[in-house]
């Protein structure tokens, strides 16, 4: 069937089976690779995109269900990766393998659009369905708070119209750094 919808501000019409998941239309028909395949059953959240502004699992969203909808993927979240969530993710060096992070960022940006100053409980509720196999959860939580504070202090920091500033190259990240001590006496063999 023909389905027409908006993706990252562009109108797309595809002729595919009505039960084809949005994820695979994005990835293999429209060549939008940001949303990732992790489980296929809405368990991991790697495929998270925004459908009409809300975080949705594209792997279990049938394409017929998005007729007329506005879809945003990580590629369309901001010009040049300037969304506060993206900048916070970079600044705190959240990613390890990075595979889940597009989904994490889409879930976090949807959270902040609705709840600009989330509590830890808000973050738990919004983010618990996004798995990170590498275990970057502590930095994910910290980065969401960091993005929220960026949005609070920057004009237009509403999660969509953030200015496309350069990423700061601060030497000191906001995460807890290790402390290092000199060899203890007798510490050598």
């Amino acid at each position, binding site marked *: 069937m023909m389905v027409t919808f908006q993706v990252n501000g562009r109108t797309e019409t595809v002729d595919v*089976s009505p039960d084809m*998941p949005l994820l*695979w239309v994005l*990835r*293999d*028909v429209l*060549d939008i*690779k*940001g949303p*990732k*395949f*992790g*489980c296929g059953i809405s*368990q*991991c959240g790697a495929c998270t995109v925004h459908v009409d502004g809300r975080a949705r699992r594209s792997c279990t969203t049938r394409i017929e269900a998005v007729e007329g909808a506005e879809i945003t993927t*990580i590629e369309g*979240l901001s010009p*040049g*990766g300037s969304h506060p969530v*993206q900048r916070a*993710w*970079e600044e705190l*060096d959240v*990613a*390890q*393998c*990075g*595979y889940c*992070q*597009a989904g994490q*960022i889409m879930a976090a940006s949807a959270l902040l659009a609705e709840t600009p100053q989330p509590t830890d409980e808000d*973050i*738990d509720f919004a*983010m*618990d*369905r*996004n*798995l990170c*196999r*590498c*275990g*970057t*959860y*502590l*930095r*994910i939580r910290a980065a969401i708070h960091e993005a929220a504070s960026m949005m609070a202090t920057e004009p237009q920091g509403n999660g969509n119209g953030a200015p496309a500033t350069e990423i700061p190259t601060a*030497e000191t990240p906001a*995460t*807890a*750094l*290790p*402390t*290092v*001590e*000199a*060899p*203890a006496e007798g*510490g*050598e*063999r």
Partner: protein
Amino acid sequence: MSTPTTGMSRRNFLKVSSIAGGGFLLSIGVDPLGKGLFAADAAVDFIPNHFIRLTPDGLVTIMAQNPEIGQGVKTMLPMLIAEEFDVAWEDVTVEQAPHDPEKYSRQFAGGSNATPTHYMPMRRAGAVGRHLMKQAAAQEWGVDMSEVETDAGVVRHAASGRTATYGELAETAAGLTAPDPETVELKDPSEFRIIGTDRRNVDNRKIVTGQPLFGIDFTLPDMLYAVYEKCPSFNGTVASADLDAVLAAPGVRHAFVVDGVGNTSTLVGGVAIVADTWWQANEARKLLEVEWDEGPAAEQSTAGFARRAAELSMQPPEEVLREDGDVDAALAGAAATVEAAYDYPFISHAQLEPENCTAWWHDGRMEMWAPTQTPDSGRRDVAEVLGIDESQVSIDLIRCGGGFGRRLYNEWMVEAAWIAREVGVPVKLLWTREDDMRYDRYRPGGFHYFRGGVDEEGRLSVWEDHFVSYGENGRFASSASMSGNLYPASFIPNFRLATSRMPLHVPTGALRAPSSNAFGFVLEGFIDELAHAAGRDPVEFRLDLLDAPRVGDGGFDAARMRGVLESVAERSGWGQRDLPRGTGRGVGCYYSHRGYFAEVVVVTVRQNGRLEIGDVWVVGDVGSQIINPLNAVNSVQGGVIEAFSHALGQEITIEGGAVVESNFDEYPLIRLTEAPKSIDVHFVLTDNPPTGLGEPSLPPAIPALTNAIFDATGNRVRSLPLSKQDLSWS
């Protein structure tokens, strides 16, 4: 489609930069991910070796030679080169090297090996470049090389005040002969400006903007997509298959039976389906009707293994791996003894990016784009099974969406290559999560039957472990072995380690901190039991055991372990607080992959058994230098969180020779709300060569957790996962 920059034959691109004297060929082949090639117009570029390229305008490109699986090696190895080349990190562009054993040594990701293997060679590669920059400047200025020095991409001659940028010197330097890397001068660590500083992941921007970085994202023009259906019971073969309905399904181009070679490491029998889109291929799979000849695995089950292990525990062991002193006499004479049976299940890697590989057979060549940890063995396996020469196979390395040991094994590469040769056009094979979970090489389960005792002074005096594991004919299955040198061996006067093996037809293999990820739980759990039997504080009891100023068998250095234990006790406030009932503190320490780690975990267990993990303290000793602290902390925290993921709910169950669990609803990964509240990471620097961080933080986290549960509730955890244990208390 995201199209490679031009054609697909990497060989067309090669040999473009085999240039000026002292220059070497830099092979980077197809640039599928838009990262940019080293320019072909390279007559004046400075290329002292396979790692560095400097253009006259001062742009520095550094090759990252190892596969990136999330461990941060694509950032870390170039940091070592940039440090000794002495350029500003901000001026460096990092490129992923393709697989090329002629140019790069030990190009693999595994065993926390990158740091110990490459720390010196990468520094030397950079130092060669710096040496040539100084030589070029000295030559141009007619001064002695000893009179010039470098400073972040600039050479200075203090006496005359002359300076030149590296870019300005590139052409001259390109004409010089490179010095011997083994004897080139290296910086003193006190001069480091990149090593030891926080440097962000070089792929961060691409990750946060969703660029097509991963194997699953790679495409070629006219590429088709494949799925591969295998027998649910390991290593079964296709008896008959009705492919008519599959071939008639929308988008399907090919469907065929593959006989395989009967080896789960390379190619087992199955049915390939190839279609225009992956979803169509996978949908068509539902129409597949196959009769399987189940292999010998069909007789095996988790319940059967448990029954057999219990029987074996009552019999004399098959083999004694180590015996010191007189265990039976020491047990008879001990002040207190403990008997305990520990076990842990099979678990699966579950890296988030499912196995995938893109392959194209053309002109007698197999070109592959593979997110693999071990391209050497991938190439070998492909060549062997397809009956072609290894020189006909080329592999581009693509960022892996997690590794954890799964991508040490490359049967998905062989499957992709086999299918690609059959269909003659580029093919991307992609497994489903179900394929991944049901055809892994699992962390093997195991059973430990312990007896131990303490003497009148409360010291550990006797230890016996009958380890019931997997294997046959006197050999252990992969990653199912135990060494007689493993701590606490050689620290207890009366010690016996014995084993009995059960035949296994389920494939097993290395999973992050292989064997240590299980032994940490059982060894440090049983030591904790003995500490309590002795009425001793668990940290003091361990320090006592380690009170031997020597290096034990197997290279274990007691002093280094004491160092991290004392440090973690101090940082965590061990022994200083009275915790309420239901809240407890546990400790664990473990040596693996050359790293010493001690960890303390605080938990709260509600009366109904609900577990909450609180704060965690980690202290590690991986030698004299933490190369990239920002990533080191991330990696250590990830290791701890993965450990808890193993412990909380993960179990692979075998029934009828097949895996029961198929996806994350049945095989849960730890989630954000289950993660610890905080993980304090601290490194003790010792005068030892720097070693790796990918694995050693994981093993002690599990016993620290289970020992904390005991402290909180009195429930001693001797079996995992925790989801199957009753932790309630009253």
